[in-house]
């Protein structure tokens, strides 16, 4: 800090500054470690308990480590499920399908609308932007009652496609991510293509879309994790017992397994894996998407 100081007095001052800096640094690390401990403790306890046998679970303290780390019986149990429809295997398949379709639809709609709004001046352009902007101010969660009625009218309740349409239709953030991305993409790219005889459709699909891969990854990761973790609508609109997403299947565990947390936590851990893997692979995109998605959303 006081590197320009000279002489003996400067040296002791310097030393004191260094000592203070070290102390601050230690305090910083201690608080960070404490925060990480709190962040990890619930996950860690769920992890350890998931390897315990029923007998071990009832006889040992919640925080003692399992005797056999290779006891995968609980995992096998939730994987198979109490009844076939509630097996996590099936739930993963259902959620996987929902995520793939909803993400694809969101990416297509977001990129197309972003392209139109960014590249073309037409009457209504501002209106459309405002309609989407105002929509972000209306909390979707408050409108669930009237949305439910509309879903019922359209016979979309208890159908997988209905749920998927609902999940892809209420997305404003991906549109903004694409809008922002197109703003930073040189107009000359598609303009020259159109001047050379390429159609606007061709310019979009062949030239612009391949360039938006970073935005596509961001939207896919954010939307994918969001849809995968979604519980409220899945519970409301897929409640006939025919379809279980990962969230609703997990929720249904509280019936058969009550407070057998050794089994439930095995399910919890399995459902954590996909977001964990996505996070480890796409960390940068997750952070970036969070920022760009929420600044306007």
């Amino acid at each position, binding site marked *: 800090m006081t590197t320009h100081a000279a002489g003996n007095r400067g040296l002791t001052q310097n030393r004191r500054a260094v000592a203070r800096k070290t102390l601050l*640094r230690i305090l*910083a690390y201690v*608080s*960070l470690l404490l*925060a*990480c401990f*709190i*962040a*990890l*403790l*619930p*996950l860690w*306890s*769920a992890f350890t*308990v998931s390897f315990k046998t029923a007998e071990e679970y009832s006889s040992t303290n*919640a*925080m003692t480590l399992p005797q056999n780390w290779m006891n995968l019986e609980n995992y096998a149990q939730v994987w198979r499920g109490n009844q076939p429809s509630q097996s996590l295997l099936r739930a993963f398949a259902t959620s996987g399908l929902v995520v793939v379709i909803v993400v694809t639809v969101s990416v297509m*709609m977001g990129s197309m609308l972003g392209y*139109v*709004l960014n590249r*073309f001046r037409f009457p209504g352009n501002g209106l459309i932007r405002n*309609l989407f902007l105002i*929509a972000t*101010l209306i*909390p*979707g*969660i*408050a*409108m*669930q*009652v*009237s*949305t439910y*009625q*509309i879903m*019922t009218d359209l016979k979309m309740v208890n159908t997988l496609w209905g749920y998927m349409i609902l999940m892809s*239709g*209420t997305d404003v953030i991906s549109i903004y991510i694409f809008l922002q991305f197109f703003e930073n993409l040189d107009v000359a790219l598609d303009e020259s293509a159109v001047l050379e005889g390429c159609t*606007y*459709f061709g310019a*979009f699909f062949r030239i612009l879309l391949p360039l938006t891969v970073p935005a596509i990854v961001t939207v896919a990761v954010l939307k994918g994790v969001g849809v*995968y973790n979604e*519980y*409220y609508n899945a519970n409301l609109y897929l409640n006939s017992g025919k379809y279980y997403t990962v*969230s609703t299947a*997990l*929720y249904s565990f*509280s019936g058969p397994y009550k407070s057998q947390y050794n089994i*439930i*936590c095995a*399910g*919890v851990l399995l*459902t954590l894996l996909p*977001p*964990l893997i*996505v996070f480890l692979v796409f960390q940068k995109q997750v952070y970036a998407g*969070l*920022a760009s998605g*929420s*600044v306007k959303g």
Partner: protein
Amino acid sequence: MTNAAAPDLRQRRKKINGQKVLLIVTFSVIPLFLLALFTYVPFFRMIRFSFYNMSYTKNKGFVGLDNYVKIFTREEYVSAMLLSLYYMAGAAIQLSLALFFATLLTSGLKGSGLFKGIMFFPFLVNGIAIGYMFKFFFTRGFVLDTVLQSLGISLESLPYWLRDQSVNNWSLVFTSVWKYCGQNMVLFVGAIASIDPTLYEAATIDGANKWQQFKAIILPGIKTVFMLNLILSITGSLSAFEPAYVVGSMGANGTATFFIKIHQMAHVHNKVGMACAMAMVLMILILVFTVAQRLFFRYVMKDSENTFNGKANRAKALW
């Protein structure tokens, strides 16, 4: 662009214009349709329903403001609304923690990336999974109690975290802070990282200490994100749902937030009109808070922006 090419060009332009219209229509019709279907139609229906006494299947007629009067006069609704105060207090703590850790993580400590990743990960965890983990966490004699006992606190002196009505809402707020703190922090880290680093250098030369730097450079620099985080967490606390629904067993033991009341009103008691009126109140509250925050920050933050500019100007003069 010679004269000879003009008719040809005009024809092409016409063709291109037609194509443009076609493109604009095909690319925007589906998103707009869905926006109308799932946002604006339900929105206007919600307004209308809130003045009716009706269920999903039957409409028993117009009742004017009756539903609204009930919300503000019956104790159970008012107390559910007041529950969000817990979540707002939690949001304040959460934002301070997030800002604190974001400042630490951007000060060049080793291992920042790892710390950031660990603290952020809870945001990606499934809400139901969080519910189970924290039920296990808070159960008498289980995870939390064991940790506290190892610190020398006797089990007898500890409350039942989820049953005791004097603490259970705080326990639920804790799960919400656990989930969202990392997200707020990442947003802060992004904002702080985008501040021009020469400002710190200038401030250091100016003799500003870390706290002064935080006040004069970081705080104004993250104003937008700060407000965004604040709005997100206030709207989040008003519509808090998952902690109470899953950890608190559908709002048992006095943990039913306003949103859970709406859900029960609509899907358990089948009183759609009443539920819509409650949703309207929730929405108006959220809008009022959002607007109030914007105005407040426009007024208060302008002040610090001036000091920020003053500092920057002084720094420039120094160079």
